[in-house]
């Protein structure tokens, strides 16, 4: 192949892309859709359920304050601290629950794997930025709130290329 034909071919390949749809995800306006409601773990079978590993969610009525999640995280990021909570739960004699510092958490989900009482899951919420370090520390009360997320953009493949739509 001659040099001129090669260059023309290369240019042509680029020019053809003008007609192809844009693949870019316009992030704050569009958000990617994820499978399921976040990563969960079933201790009875020992297998997780696929989902995004985002911000955690704590179920106060399941948590027994057994500290297993905090022990699991000690080897990873030391992001979990057990703190006293004011509300009285019958199954939680010591009234302690995990508090997670997202400045340290690496979103590995090993704490979810460690919880034997179905009390700790992960959710689809990944927008955790904050102006202060304190804002990244989520108390048990904050972790109990189910996040409100609107995510609906998916990869679509058409004859004119792939898009997010």
């Amino acid at each position, binding site marked *: *192949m001659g*040099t001129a034909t*090669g*260059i023309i*071919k*290369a240019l*042509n*390949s*680029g020019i053809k892309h003008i007609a192809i749809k844009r*693949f*870019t*995800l316009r992030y704050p306006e569009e958000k*990617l859709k*994820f*499978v*399921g409601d*976040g*990563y969960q773990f079933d201790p009875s*079978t*020992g*297998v*997780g*359920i*696929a*989902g*995004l*590993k985002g911000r955690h969610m704590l179920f106060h009525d399941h948590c027994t304050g057994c500290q297993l999640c905090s022990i*699991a995280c*000690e*080897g*990873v*990021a030391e992001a979990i601290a057990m703190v006293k909570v004011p509300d009285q739960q019958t199954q939680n004699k010591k009234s302690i629950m995990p508090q997670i510092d997202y400045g340290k958490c*690496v*979103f*590995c*989900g*090993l704490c979810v*794997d460690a919880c034997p009482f179905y009390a700790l899951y*992960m959710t689809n919420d990944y927008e955790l930025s904050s102006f202060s370090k304190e804002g990244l520390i989520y108390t048990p009360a904050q972790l109990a709130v189910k996040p409100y997320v609107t995510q609906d953009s998916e*990869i679509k*493949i058409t004859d004119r290329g*792939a898009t997010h739509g």
Partner: protein
Amino acid sequence: MTAELPPGLALQKVDERIMTLNVGPQHPGSGHMRIIVQIDGDYIVACDPDPGYVHRGEEKMAEYRNYITNIPHLERPVIHDSCNILYPYVLGVEELLGIEVPERAKYIRVIASELNRCIYTMYWLAIYGIFLGHSTMFMWPAGDRELLIDLMEKMSGARVTHAHFVPGGVRNDLPPNFEDVCLRQVNYFEKRIKEYAAIFYDNPILIARTEKTGILSRQDAIRLGTTGSVLRASGVDYDLRKKEPYDVYDELDFQTNVLKEGDSYARSKVPWLDMMESCRIIRHALEKMPKSGSVRVKLKPNPKGGDDSVYKRVESGRGSLGCYIVSDKKPEPYRVKLSVGSFRNLIALPYLLKGEKLGNMPSVYWSLNYWPVEADR
């Protein structure tokens, strides 16, 4: 001047014609490493790669964590290829603890590892494009990589650093409908990377810049101990997926790509051909995978190994990646040693750059498939 020098230091005689140039460690192209080159006019007379700026002590850290909590930090050295860097560790721990992995988990691991190989190679290709001043070749791979990152995120819940492999299988089963989505996106991905031929690999400008630069002969490639795509570009047919099949690679149908030239062009082409092979492996694995079944065997909390050691290696995006684990009946390993492809390929750099033009340095350097963070561990 004859001032006394402190012991251990010596003055180097400087040739008038030779200039010493530091490329990196803050250079966007070199990554976190420094290449000290000595140039005579436009030609390189000597080159001394200086890695070690991002040493993280992964191996030492592994001695203080148990076999499970080692997973998140051990995959950090190559976040784009995190499944492959965990693979030998997980295989080794399985042998130490005597775990038999379910069949379906093996297939999922192969698919995840091939997806990761493509994700890494696309990132590498994007940087290679920008190294050669080809900004389209930066944009396209960076965009098309998203197709596979999306698949990995559906599978494992994280876009990079998946922490998906564990001793005993994988963390979670595939989400519903994953097979169809995976097949569709991998097919489209394959179609896309084939389009790179016209704009990049058959482009006369690229060929003129990379062909016959930095030639590594077959003998040198073996003698210097290079691995992966560098070795295969020099005409040595050596791929661990074929030579020492792990998990289910021996049941899958694929071939290795070997080129004879050993120049930068061949070294940049082998990973691209490998990606097409990866697409075939993924399709075949999706077809052969058992449709249901367990994906993880339940381990005791804090599993302990015996008085034993094990060495496992896999083929990563950068070549052979080995992991040597010594256990001494404690929940923590006594020693974890990683032998990474990047570091072994870097040895070839001084040989390749001698006599080259300075302008060819980026293309030769990056064609070695080098990842600074992995080399430093």
